[in-house]
Structure formats: C-alpha cells, structure tokens
C-alpha cells in the first residue's frame, strides 16, 4: 500500500527513470502512436545544409560573388560579414534518389539509398550562432543551460521499459561544446538525466567493482549492506524511501550483469557488423555507437542520443577552415553507420516503432569563411527523420535560393520538440513539471507549428 503520492513516486523511482508522474496525473497524455523510442543522431559542430540535404544551384552560379542587394542584412555570426563575404559553391554533387527523387549530396552515398524513408525538414531555424547556446537550444529549447533536455522530458513522460538499464542513454565522442548539460535533467529529478555510456566492458560510470575487489567480495559487501539496511528498516517500515534505497543496491548489482551484456558486440554476426562498417578504420567508431543504439532500443531504452564530433578532436566544426576536408571526413565516418542502422532496424521490424532523427546545432554559411570554409549558420538548416510510421521520401519547407533563411514552413526548435513529443504520444502542452511555480514545458510557450500530421500523412 502506498500511503501517499510522494511515497508512491519514491517507490516508483527505484529503477532508472521514474514512472511518469505527469503521465500518471494527467489522463490522455499518452496517445496511441507508433513511436515508442527515439534514436537521435546529433552531428556536433554544425553540418552544412547546402552541402548535404539542401541543394542550392545559385551558389554555383554566383560562386565568388557577394550576396546581391540587401540579402545579408540582419544576419550575424562571429567570423564573417554577410555584406562582404562571397558565395561558395558546394564542392559536392547532388543526386536525386529513390522513387521520391529527394536530392542528397554525394557526401552520403549510403544514406542516399534510404531517401524514400526520410522526411527532410529544410526549413529549420534558430537564433543562436555559438555552439554551446545552439546545442542548449536544440536540446532543451533554451540557449541558457539549466533546462531539462528533450531526452529527459521524453523519459519523464514515457517512463521506463527496462528498469535494469537507464531509459535515456547518451554516447558521445567526449568533449561536448555545451558540456554534459546538453543531456542533463535540468530542474527535473536526477533520475531523468541522460546516462553517458562509454566504450568498453563497463559502459556506466562506477559500474565496475573497485580495483582488486573480486565478484565474491563485492557480493559479500553488498550482502552486508543489505543486512544492515534491513535491520535499520525493521523499526522504520513505514518509510518507503528507505526501502527504495535497499532496492537500488539490488538493482545496481543486477546492472553489473545486464549493462555489459547490452554492450557486448561479440554476439553480433559478422554480416551485421559489416553493415555498420565496424572494423573499418573510418566507420568503426560511429558504427559501434549505432549498433549499440539498436541493441539498447531492443532492450527497452527509450531515448538514445548519439553525438558525432567533439570539441577536442575531429568535428563538423572543422569546416571553419576546411569545409572539404572536415565534411568528407565526418560524413565518411557516419554515412555507412547511419545507413546500416536504418537497414538493420527495418530488417528487424524495429523501425516501425523507432524514430530516427538526424540533426545538428546549426547549418553553415552559404558564404565562404576564408577561402574554403563556412561559418556557423542558424538561420536556415536541415533536420531529417525516419521510422515510426513517418511517410518518407518527402521534403518539408525550404530556404531561400541561397540557403540563407528558412522561408517556407519555418520550423523552430519548439515546433520540432512539439512534434517529437507528439510522435511519442505526448501532448507538449500537457507534459509539464512545476518549477518556480510555473508549469514548465519543453516548448515553453511555443510549439504552435508542430507538423506531426504532415509527417504521418503521405
């Protein structure tokens, strides 16, 4: 018997990710939708839209010339002057793909084959042109840190499918320009925080027993804790918080076996590994992350966030000085793994219930920075989605002829967040958490241009 809501929630909070408290409190929050989970592929550093999913022939036509008239007015980034910088043609060819004929550049030869699965949103826009604020904005809806991330909101609303694993898992290349706050829980309870999975046998921090402590010794110590706790509890049985903590040690112990199993790729066939480009030097790293993502969603993880790129190594942001080199390298590293993930999910019947999102914090300037670079560009860029019943092979919105500004069907981050929550069966207006006496929402007071129905209705 739960004696109060607080105690119920405490008890429910034994696992990773509480049972949705808002979801419990508000009937009709969860609608029947196909998406049960999300794999969010975040290209860290900023991918050029005009070189990937948003072809702009005008850039080739006017290559080397400044923008006509007042086209550049009002656009700002830190490194270029839009009135003076010159247009830079894309060094890559765009080809039409699949039945739909969606144009994708040759940077993504493998993803091109999945064109008919993709819903490409070419009219994303934001107002932050530095990485950290832009990453914060894309993930939490606010340029300032401190707000819960999309993944945290999602698992807060959805709850957990496997309490032996975290509901919200993050795999990055390490140093995020925004810091770890990008997958933080903000003002939500810490249980909703993204848990960083690392490579190797012990994916979760502090999962392994201390050095020199054998499994038997660890078990012995856990047993001591349990016996001490049960003696303590015997005179305090009304307090379910204490009971929840006793269970949390049992859970920690179970995780020591379950989590390593989840990340053990030796059980995958050679064909599957090859699909993701594992063991190939360029694609091995991101291929492993994508394959892990599939293994995790299979085990009920609700939200897997993958980042490609890092502040301290190879990054999409190397395009400042070297568009060609950076984008060739970063696309090469992720193209086959992403395509492999789509293929693998589809062949296992998981794509119907898994939403795959590809995005980045901003696009890059259609104008050159230096001679062969592009600066940050939040005023128009591309995101695509696939799976979970989305009608693919379609394009939503557009940027102007130079790729500068989103013009048709403009979608800001709140519209995208509202849509993603809706696809997961949640109303972004109703998924709230009371903080500082406001019923806070992921979409704050926005999200009015969500486009779920467009995505689902071909």
């Amino acid at each position, binding site marked *: 018997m739960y004696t109060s809501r607080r105690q119920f929630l405490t008890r429910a909070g034994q696992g990773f990710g509480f049972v949705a408290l808002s979801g419990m409190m508000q009937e009709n929050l969860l609608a029947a939708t196909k998406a049960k989970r999300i794999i969010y592929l975040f290209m860290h550093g900023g991918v050029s839209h005009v070189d990937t999913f948003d072809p702009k022939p005008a850039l080739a036509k006017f290559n080397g010339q400044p923008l006509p008239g007042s086209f550049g007015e009002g656009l700002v980034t830190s490194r270029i002057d839009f009135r003076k910088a010159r247009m830079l043609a894309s060094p890559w060819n765009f080809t039409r793909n699949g039945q739909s004929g969606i144009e994708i550049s040759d940077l993504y030869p493998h993803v091109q084959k999945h064109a008919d699965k993709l819903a490409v949103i070419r009219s994303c826009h934001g107002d932050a042109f530095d990485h950290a604020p832009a990453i914060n904005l894309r993930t939490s809806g606010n340029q300032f840190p*401190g707000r819960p991330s999309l993944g945290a909101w999602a698992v807060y609303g959805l709850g957990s499918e496997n309490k032996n694993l975290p509901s919200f898992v993050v795999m990055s290349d390490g140093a995020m320009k925004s810091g770890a706050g990008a997958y933080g829980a903000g003002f939500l309870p810490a249980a909703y925080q993204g848990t960083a999975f690392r490579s190797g046998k012990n994916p979760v921090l502090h999962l392994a027993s201390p050095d020199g402590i054998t499994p038997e010794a660890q078990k012995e110590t856990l047993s001591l804790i349990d016996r001490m706790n049960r003696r303590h509890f015997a005179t305090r049985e009304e307090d379910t918080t204490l009971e929840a903590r006793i269970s949390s040690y049992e859970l920690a112990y179970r995780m020591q076996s379950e989590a390593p199993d989840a990340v053990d790729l030796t059980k995958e066939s050679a064909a599957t590994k090859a699909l993701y480009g594992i063991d190939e030097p360029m694609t091995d790293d991101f291929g492993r992350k994508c394959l892990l993502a599939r293994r995790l969603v299979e085990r009920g993880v609700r939200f897997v966030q993958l980042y490609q790129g890092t502040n301290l190594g190879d990054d999409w942001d190397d395009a400042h000085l070297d568009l060609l080199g950076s984008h060739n390298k970063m696309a090469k590293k992720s193209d086959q793994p992403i395509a492999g993930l789509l293929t693998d999910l589809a062949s296992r019947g998981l794509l119907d219930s898994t939403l795959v999102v590809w995005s980045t914090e901003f696009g890059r300037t259609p104008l050159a920075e230096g001679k062969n670079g592009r600066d940050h560009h939040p005023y128009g860029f591309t995101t695509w989605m696939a799976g979970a019943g989305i009608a693919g092979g379609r394009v939503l919105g557009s940027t102007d002829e130079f790729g500068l500004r989103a013009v048709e069907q403009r979608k800001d981050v709140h519209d995208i967040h509202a849509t993603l929550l809706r696809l997961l069966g949640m109303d972004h207006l109703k998924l709230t958490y009371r903080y500082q006496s406001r019923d806070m929402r992921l979409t704050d007071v926005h999200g009015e241009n969500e486009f779920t129905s467009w995505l689902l209705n071909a």
Partner: protein
Amino acid sequence: MRFVVLLTFAVSLPAADLKGSAVALLSQKCQSCHGPQVQLSGLRLDTREAILRGGKQGAALTPGKPQDSLLFRVISGGDKVAMPPTGPLGPAEVSLLREWITAGAVWPTEAVAAKKWWSFEKVKPVKPPVLADAWVRTPVDAFILQQLRARGLSAAPEADRRTLIRRAMLDLHGLPPTAAEIEAFEKDSAPDAYEKLVDRLLASTRYGEKWGKNWLDLVRYGDTSGFEQDPYLLYAWRYRDYVIDSFNADKPYDRFVKEQLAGDEIYEEPIAQQGTGYYTVGPNRDMLFKVEDINRVETMTDFVDTTSSVFLGLTVGCARCHDHKYDPISQKDYFRLQAIFAPIVKSRVFLTYNLARQYDLQENTRQWKLYDLADEFQRMKAPYVKRLRAEKLAQLPQAVQIAFATEEDQRTPQQKADFEMFTKKVAPRDDEVFSLLTPDEKAKLDRLKTRLLSLYSNYAPGPFSPSVTDSGPLGPPVYIPGKESDEVPPGFLSALGGGDIPPPPPGSATTLRRKALAEWIASPEHPLTARVAVNRVWQAHFGRGIVATTSDFGARSTPATHPELLEWLANEFVAKGWSFKQLHRTMMLSSVYRQQTKPSPAALTKDPENQWLSHFTRRRLEAEEVRDAVLLAAGTLNPKMHGKPVVPALAAEELYGMSQPLGNAWVVTSDPTEHTRRSIYMISRRNFRMPMLEVFDRPEGVLSCARRESSTTPTQSLSLLNSDFTRHQALALAAASLKGDESAISEAVFLATLARRPDANELTMARDFLTKQSQLLGSVEKAAAELARGLFNTNEFLYVD
C-alpha cells in the same frame, strides 16, 4: 489529500486566497482545453475578461450568481454537459468555485491590486495560542499543537540524545557527530544540555559552511561562467567566503540583503561591498563573440528573476513577455525592476586599498618584462625551429611537401587539406628545440627560466573581490520591447505599493537605484522579506516550508499550513534583529523539533506527508553532506576554511564529457591534503559537476534553487559503492582501525562510520564478514576497508532520523 488542503484553505484563510485558489484550479483543470493554446468551443478561461466574454455558448459566468453561470453548472452536474471530461471535481473544489463566483469572481490580479493577497499585506501581529500542555516548550509548539489537535493528531515523543545531536549537527554544520561528541552529550546531565548544544553548534564556524551552501544554492553560485569555453570566474570564491563569514558572524539579514543588492552604494567598508559579488557569480556568456546584446538581455533577466525569487519569494519571470497571469505583476512592473539593474557594470572591490594597487602595479611590470622575455626565447629558438620543421617535413610524402611549398592561394583543395592536417605535426616542440641548444645557449636558457620563475614564484590571487557598480548617475533608458517610445522609469512592484525611484542628487557617482531597492526590501515593513526568509529556514529544519513553495508567495503558492506561525516567526525574526542564529534557536529548542521520526498510525492515514508535523521528517543527507561525512569518518577531513576552489583528483572516466582540455579545465590542486576539504570548497564548474555530487542532486548552479530534489537512484548507489573516492576513504579508515583482533577492528569501524558500537548480533556479523573478506582479498586491512565501504553505504549512514 487534495480534498483536505482545499477544504482547509477555503475555510480558514482570508477571502483573497479564495481567488488565487479558484484561479489555480481553473488553470489545473480547465486551461489545457480552454486556455491560451487551445480554445475548445471558442472559450478560454485564463482571464476574467475572457470568461465573461465566453465562447460559442455565450458568457461562461455571471459574477455573484453561480447557478446562472454556465461554468458552474457544467462542473457541478447542473447541465447536460459535464466538465471537466477527465472526471468530476471534488466537493471541496466545487464549493470553492461556488464561493468564488458568489464573491464576484474576482481575479487575483484585481484582488492583489486592491492589496488583499495575504502575503502582500503587512505581517500581522499574532499572539501564540495559550494551551495548557506540558509538551509546549515554546510558542512554536503552541501553534503546531493547536493544528495537531484540530486534526485529531498528537505529537510524537521526544527523540533520544543520540538522535538529537545527529539531527542538530547535520542541520547546523552539515556534518554528523563523532562517537565522542555523542557520548559527551548523552552524559551531560545539565537540565539545559540541549540548549547548550545548540548554542555551541551555532558558535562554530562549521555553521557558516552549511548555511552558506544553502544560500549559494539560492543565488545560483558557480566558479565558472558556463558555455563552450566555461571560463573561470577567477574571484567568485571571495563571494562564497563572504557568504560563509556572514552566516558565521550572524550578520543581520537586513544588512546581508543590503550588502548584496547595493553594498557599493550604501557602505564604505570593502567587506560589505563584497556582497555585490551576488550579481557576478551567475552564468554568463561574456566571452563569446558578438553576443553582447543577447548576453545583456539574459543578464538583466537573471538579475530581475533571481532577485525577485531569492529576496521577495516572487516569480516575476512571466511578466517579461506579458502581464503576469496569476500575480498582479504587469509587464511594465517587470521593466521598472529591470531599470534598477540596467546601469550595472562589473567592478572589483579592493579588499585592502594599498595592497590592491601594489598588486596591479606588479602585474603591470610583470607583463612588460614577459613581453621581452618571450622575445628572447623566440630569438634563441628561431634557427632550431626552422631546422626541425624542415627535417620533419622531409619525412612526409612528396605531395605534402609540395603542398607546404605552394603559396596558400595556389593550393588545390587536397593540398589545403594536407596543409591543414600536417601543420601541427611539423611544428617542433619546445623540448625538441631545447635539446639542440649549445652549452652557452643552455646556460642562457637556464637564466631565462630562472627569471621567468622568479616572476611567478610568489604569484597568487590579488586582494580583490568581484563586485558591481553603476556606469554613472544616469542609467541607460529602459523600454518594454516593442514600445520603444515609452521609457520605463525605475520603480517597485505596484502590487506592493509601487513608487518610482527618484533620480540621484547632483554629484552622485551612481543612480542609487539599487540602494533604493535594497532599503525597500530590507525594511521591517516589507510584507515579504521576513516571511520568505523565516520560511526558508523552516524548510531546512522541517523538510517543508510553512509555505511549501519557498520561492513563490504569489497566487500560485501552496497555501500556508500554519499561517499564524509564519506571521509570528516573521515578527520575532525582525524583533530579534534579523538574526538567523536566534531564529534557529527559536525553531530548534521547540518540542516540535525534538520529536522522534516514528509516525503514529493516525498520522500515517491522516497526514502521510507530515505537513502538520506530528513527528519529525526523516531526510537523506545532501550531496555535500554525504561526501563530507565519509571524509570525517575516514579521518581525512581537512577542516581548512576559505580560499580558492579546490580541484580534487578524479578518475579519467569520471571526467568524461568535459568541454575543454583537462589540462585547462581540471587543473588538479597540487597539494593533495586540499583534496579532502569540505565539499563547499570544491570547484563548481557550470559545465561539469563532480559525478558523486551530481548524482546526489547537487543543483546545476544556473537557476536559483530553493529546494533540492532528494532522489533515490541506482547511480547514487553505484557511485557511493564503487567510486575511487569511497574506496580510498575506506582504505584510509581501515589503516587507522587495524588495532587488535577482529572484534576490535569491527568496533573501530562502526564507531568511525556510525558513531556507535555494534550490538552483539552486528559484532558477530562484522567479525564473520572480516574473516570471509580476509580470505577472499588476502589481508585483514582490505577486509576492514570492505567493512568501511559497506557501512558508508547503509541507510543508517545516509539518513537523519
């Protein structure tokens, strides 16, 4: 639960509360379909005008006449339509709305504009109830007992001495008592032993470290500014120390408020001016490019929101974009407040004038010398750099060499990529260069090194503290966005009496706007200041505020459980000179505070959340308390106070995700004895929290945090169980406990961790454990460390009864 609450405040609170509660109810139950986003049937219920205007069915409400009001009919079963669709309202909710409509359906905005919202009115003089009951030690007890009796509840018996001292020490010091301290207290037969204990704890400097931490949560303190580079706020810790010292000195709260909001405008003493560090220790993006305008907007927003929230207990943020929906705060009011902060510029306090000037002069000379020193290094290096670079380049493929030889604007894309990729690889490192120097040059290099070192060997932070002042006596004009023709003058919230702040007298160096704000807030007449402060202290001692929403006393606040007690405490606080230490005494010497945690069966059914305080509410140790308690038990706690933040050594896997190179972002403090100081002295980076503190709910330091979460997660267990930190401290404790046989060791480890001896059963269990672990791990010391690691992870260690 909800039924009880609604009934209570509908009956016992002033009429103004009715409006707030009714509107809050509409907001909770109706506005998702009839609100700003969605207006089913064309109806919205979020303003009085909208309700009176109604929707497709006509007016939703007739003030004064519930039965003629469509809104009331549909929620009370008096219409063919029944609302809300999720199920009928409870009887208390229905009667609340009936009363509200009967009373004219007044919106809180109007209610408070007419100065009727309870927390906007002056604190009332209240006399404690007179109850003949031996349990009543202090007036606090009388207020509590009166409510307990009204609900058929009774108070729990007094806790034993061991429990009391642990509770009091963790509440006041954030550290548990040692076994010796418990024993001394248990043996003290003086009738006022407990009073003496509380006084002794309040007199210790450990007090400021615990209560300073509570304040730093509120003012969103951090040692770095956040965002990509996450640069250091080099002197933020001076403000942290100022806060600790202020609590230890029992600085009157009105003075503490004034120093922080306007120390520069009110006081001469540098120590007092340090308070304005309050404005400088939040997040900001000063160091990003071309975002000065956005940063300024964010900074102003932070100042208005944080100040209102911390000092007034009001959430004004909504009014930045539109008039506040629930509280009588207009958008104009919001910008009147912003105009107070608009002239702020960052500054430094010279803690000692002459030393500070001297420091600046030394820095100035040092820089000049360094320019020349570096020139000399570079001239010496130049020929070797050239040679080494050529050698390294010669090792690379021919194509790359050609790329390097080609003029930059002649390079092909591939050559550009090659150049980019290999530039770093062909750059010679200093150590390579130095190894090639001639003996004469080496001697010269040594002289240069010595000169360089001597420039820095006494380097230390200067006698400065971060602060603010105004840019001058005239503030920049402030406008409501979109209404740029209409300058908004600085002033106070209309609902709290309003009033413009006049321009400063001729010759003033600043606008004196913050001085006016500080004096307004710190006035004994201000209805919110004392109420909000005492309520925060109450929350810290009893687990829940009298008003549970401690940073919101507006219309959406949780109704006060003991409104009269709140009034009495606020009056006492002011009457006793705004003294926090007196306030702690007032609360802690009560019988309420001394109760056991065991709830009665009646309490479990009637008041499971214990808001009427029929027993004491158990709590988990906070993040810092967990870490500090482990250090204390291990005997490694370094009690040193103050100073620049300590960066403790962490395992590589714990540092995962840092946004900057570890060599810059995690510069481990060179003196290892510093690593075991109290958690409040550990660095708080905005982009990276120490994993153990993070999992135990330490806030991010971005938004003001009025109440920490107290979650229970497996990551907490993993951290406390398996981290290097726990292991090292367990080994330290084991090393200190290895005297005598297994019984003696068991006793020593129990005494250090749980501050008690094991009972007979536990002793057997511990001895068997040591025997078994010694076999498994190969030594008694390792086994003893396991015993320590186990006991650190027990609920007895982690909770306060």
